[in-house]
């Protein structure tokens, strides 16, 4: 250790120490001369050797290399700028993608001990749901010793503040939500367990900062005022802070204590009902307890609960815990999407690295003179290689810094546009910086190593290197372009193709009678009356009932196997006229009789897969999803596919059962109208008010919901297309540069050929033929890779086949055309050479 300090001391004072050494050697020389020995030797060389003993030569060489690299790069501003821009794009895209991932999944929420927060969801071998019954939640809260706190959140349809036309989003939560997250109110107070835990407490509500800004004009005096929510008076006790970190990225505009739910929704039995899965559960692990230990204890509790209340718990159910302390709770399936996005961004990095590599190769040829001199005066190959690597490092670092700035700027803009939570910031944290360093190292390695090796060894393998570079760029660009075109096709498909049901004129009306405490008989009466009154409204063509409405909040599915293949089945419970109202065609058989038991209607694809080539009518389906307890239902009809709750998944299969009396409190009405379904809203409101004023059904227009879904995939397609276009532009410009360079090198040869009478076509062929194979192989490799990996995309493609020939052909054609033009344009210019002057010049 002390040796290092001595070395360090030497490093700092080396100039002085060097001078002393010189002095000393001079003295030695004098003394030696006095005694007649004149063979002291070269002091400079001796000093260098003495200096080497301290082991700092590598540092000096590095500094020397760096200075030289910077000088050389400044001397060629065109090259440097181009290389930095290309690198900035390649690295920047990767950094932006990682930053997004970091923000959603890696950055802990700014709450105390965010890593101890877990999200608990019900899972079994075949099913999964994100919500549980409130009494189950209370059971776990009471008995779980491995959780120091349990939080429940209940989502409800938007509520009306005072007399507003537009509704506000609302959420009920257990009061410890805010104390556990350590949130401090901007004004007033947040809900807390001391004041708001009991159902008899004074009704209190907390406003979100955004709502306070928009609707209450930032008046501090609103705290303490009474407002009306859905007609019920409640006091505003506080305003949430601007940078309020919520669990799971929810951002309701008002927060209410969960104990007060029955106050707002009259006759609601949600809080006592063991059957209704309504709350989302979060927990905080007790100190020193691991998530695994908590899961085990919860498993035991789940088994205990099943013995006491078998209706509330599935067979083989357990609670799965996921880290809840981040913006997005990452399900295991999501990591696949993340990996896919990672691969796509890596592709554009490959394109930019190959591009810069090509630039460097071209430049290497112009530096042969300089390198030759250096070798002649004695530089070792290793030294030159090291110096070239340093240059690449400098270039890579500058490109990375540019890329980091670019990514941060873009993300800042995106965050403000997307209305992200206030605590998120685009400033890179240590994880992003570490990632940047890693990506820089990879990129520098890719584009710097090969040219440096080539130059140092002075071997003339230039053609192969160029071919690899061109091939890599073409392959990577083609993958990006094909994926982009698949997504664009999917968007078009989603927009212009019939999804199997007529969404244009449909609206869903959800009175949530179950939450208002309606018995099945009461619900039936209500729904019958509602349906008949709806039919009486002019413009209404058809009315029906369904349990899981199209594009609804709740999605239920079960995965099972058909002939060894895993499939996902979406079940539903419907009234007999459902198919007619939804305009889902009946292929064979018939629809249900009212309340028919042991009968099931299946979707086309299901019947084709389960009974290929046979008549499906009369076959039996034995799934556990039947509510009656009897496991065998007979198929009485087959309808066309209608992925009403899985729009984008073309592989989804449907099964329908007839709605029974017990389903009535959970049924949703659907209405098909002649004109715009939005014009129905006032009539429906008046209607429901006359039936039961305490019930405020949620009315949703399917056309708008559908458009929102499609907008999502439009955005994704847009982004990927942008990246693809950038990749193609990079590849094209790289190609132009390389070809122009090759042509310049061979100007003399071309001039001679043409002077000797060669035709332009054959000259072009001679120059360009080295690029023929890389182009073809690159296209083939790109298409092959995409075909192989695109299975993962299927689920987002809205029914477009992942091997859709039109998309592949279009993408490859565009790329081939661009590449050909990039090659021909610079090459063709040479054909207009002035032969005489060229030959004279040489």
């Amino acid at each position, binding site marked *: 250790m002390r*040796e290092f300090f001595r070395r360090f001391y030497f490093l700092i004072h080396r100039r002085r120490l060097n001078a002393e050494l010189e002095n000393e050697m001079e*003295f030695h020389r004098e003394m030696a001369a006095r005694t007649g020995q004149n063979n002291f030797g070269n002091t400079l*060389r*001796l000093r260098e*050797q003495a*200096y080497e003993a301290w082991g700092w030569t590598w540092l000096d060489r590095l500094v020397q290399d760096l200075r030289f690299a910077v000088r050389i790069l400044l001397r060629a501003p065109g090259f440097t700028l181009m290389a930095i821009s290309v690198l900035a794009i390649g690295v920047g895209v990767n950094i932006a993608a990682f930053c997004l991932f970091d923000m959603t999944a890696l950055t802990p929420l700014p709450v105390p001990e965010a890593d101890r927060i877990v999200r608990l969801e019900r899972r079994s071998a075949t099913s999964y749901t994100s919500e549980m019954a409130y009494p189950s939640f209370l059971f776990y809260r009471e008995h779980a010793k491995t959780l120091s706190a349990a939080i429940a959140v209940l989502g409800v349809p938007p509520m009306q503040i005072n007399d507003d036309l537009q509704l506000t989003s609302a959420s009920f939560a257990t009061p410890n939500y805010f104390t556990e997250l350590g949130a401090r109110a901007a004004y007033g107070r947040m809900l807390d367990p001391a004041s708001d835990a009991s159902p008899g407490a004074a009704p209190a509500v907390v406003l979100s900062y955004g709502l306070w800004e928009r609707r209450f004009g930032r008046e501090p005096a609103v705290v303490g005022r009474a407002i009306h929510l859905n007609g019920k008076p409640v006091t505003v006790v506080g305003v949430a802070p601007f940078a309020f970190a919520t669990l799971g990225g929810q951002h309701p505009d008002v927060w209410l204590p969960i104990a007060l739910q029955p106050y707002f929704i009259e006759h609601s039995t949600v809080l006592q009902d063991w059957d209704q899965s309504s709350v989302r559960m979060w927990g905080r692990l007790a100190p020193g307890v691991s998530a695994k230990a908590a899961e085990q204890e919860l498993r035991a509790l789940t088994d205990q609960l099943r013995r006491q209340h078998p209706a509330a718990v599935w067979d083989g159910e357990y609670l799965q815990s996921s880290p809840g302390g981040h913006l997005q709770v990452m399900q295991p399936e999501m990591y696949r999407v993340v990996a896919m996005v990672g691969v796509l961004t890596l592709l554009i990095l490959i394109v930019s690295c190959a591009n810069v590599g090509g630039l460097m190769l071209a430049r290497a040829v112009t530096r042969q003179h300089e390198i030759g001199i250096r070798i002649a005066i004695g530089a070792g190959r290793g030294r030159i290689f090291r110096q070239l690597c340093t240059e690449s490092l400098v270039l890579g670092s500058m490109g990375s810094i540019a890329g980091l700035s670019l990514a941060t700027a873009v993300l800042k803009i995106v965050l403000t546009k997307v209305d992200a939570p206030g605590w998120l910031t685009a400033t890179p944290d240590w994880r992003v910086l570490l990632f940047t360093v890693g990506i820089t190292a990879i990129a520098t390695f890719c584009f710097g190593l090969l040219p440096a090796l080539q130059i140092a060894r002075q071997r003339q393998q230039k053609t192969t290197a160029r071919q690899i570079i061109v091939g890599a760029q073409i392959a990577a660009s083609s993958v990006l372009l094909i994926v982009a075109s698949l997504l664009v096709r999917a968007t078009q498909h989603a927009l212009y193709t019939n999804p199997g049901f007529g969404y244009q004129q449909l609206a869903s009306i959800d009175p949530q009678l179950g939450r208002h405490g309606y018995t099945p008989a009461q619900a039936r009466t209500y729904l019958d009356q509602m349906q008949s009154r709806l039919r009486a409204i002019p413009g209404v063509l058809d009315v029906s009932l369904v349990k899981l409405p199209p594009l609804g909040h709740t999605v239920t599915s079960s995965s099972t196997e058909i002939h060894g293949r895993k499939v996902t089945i979406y079940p539903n419970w419907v009234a007999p006229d459902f198919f007619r109202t939804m305009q889902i065609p009946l292929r064979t058989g018939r629809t249900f009789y009212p309340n028919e038991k042991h009968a099931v209607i299946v979707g086309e694809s299901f019947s084709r897969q389960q009974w290929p080539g046979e008549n499906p009518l009369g076959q039996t389906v034995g799934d556990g999803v039947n509510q009656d307890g009897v496991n065998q239902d007979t198929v009485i009809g087959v309808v066309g596919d209608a992925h009403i709750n899985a729009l984008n998944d073309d592989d989804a299969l449907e099964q329908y059962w007839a709605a029974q009396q017990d389903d009535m409190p959970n049924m949703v009405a659907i209405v098909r109208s002649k004109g715009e379904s939005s014009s129905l809203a006032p009539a429906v409101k008046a209607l429901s008010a006359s039936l039961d004023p305490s019930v405020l059904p949620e009315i949703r227009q399917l056309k708008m919901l559908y458009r929102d879904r499609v907008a999502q995939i439009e955005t994704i397609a847009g982004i990927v297309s942008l990246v693809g276009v950038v990749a193609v532009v990079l590849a094209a410009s790289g190609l132009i540069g390389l070809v122009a360079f090759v042509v310049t090198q061979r100007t003399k040869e071309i001039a001679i050929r043409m002077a000797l009478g060669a035709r332009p076509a054959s000259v072009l062929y001679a120059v360009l033929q080295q690029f023929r194979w890389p182009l073809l192989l690159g296209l083939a490799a790109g298409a092959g890779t995409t075909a192989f990996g695109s299975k993962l995309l299927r689920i987002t493609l809205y029914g477009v086949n992942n091997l859709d020939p039109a998309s592949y052909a279009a993408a490859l054609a565009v790329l081939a055309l661009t590449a050909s033009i990039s090659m021909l344009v610079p090459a063709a210019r040479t054909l207009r050479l002035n032969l005489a002057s060229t030959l004279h010049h040489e």
Partner: protein
Amino acid sequence: MPMRDMSEALSPAGALPMLILRVLQSEPLHGYVIAQRIHLLSSEVLAVEEGLLYPTLQKMLRKGWVEAEWGISETNRKVRFYRLTLQGRVQLKHELSSYGRITQAIQEVLRTA
């Protein structure tokens, strides 16, 4: 002890640090005198060239076996003297014993084989 480790200890160039340490044991000296003394004491057999002396001295400085200080030479000139440190004395003892072991071992083979 593997023979490869021995070759450095046995060659005069490899033994130079040990010789320098030994020479410095009695008093601090400057570079020229160190070389001269080794030359004379070895009856002019060993001639230490500067190309070896100064790098070795620097290495010993780095390892902390000697330290440098300013002094006045015989010719009234300010010059750097090298002095043995405590660590250097320990190193000298260590090297002497190791060298003694090796030479004894070689002599035994020569004598009896």
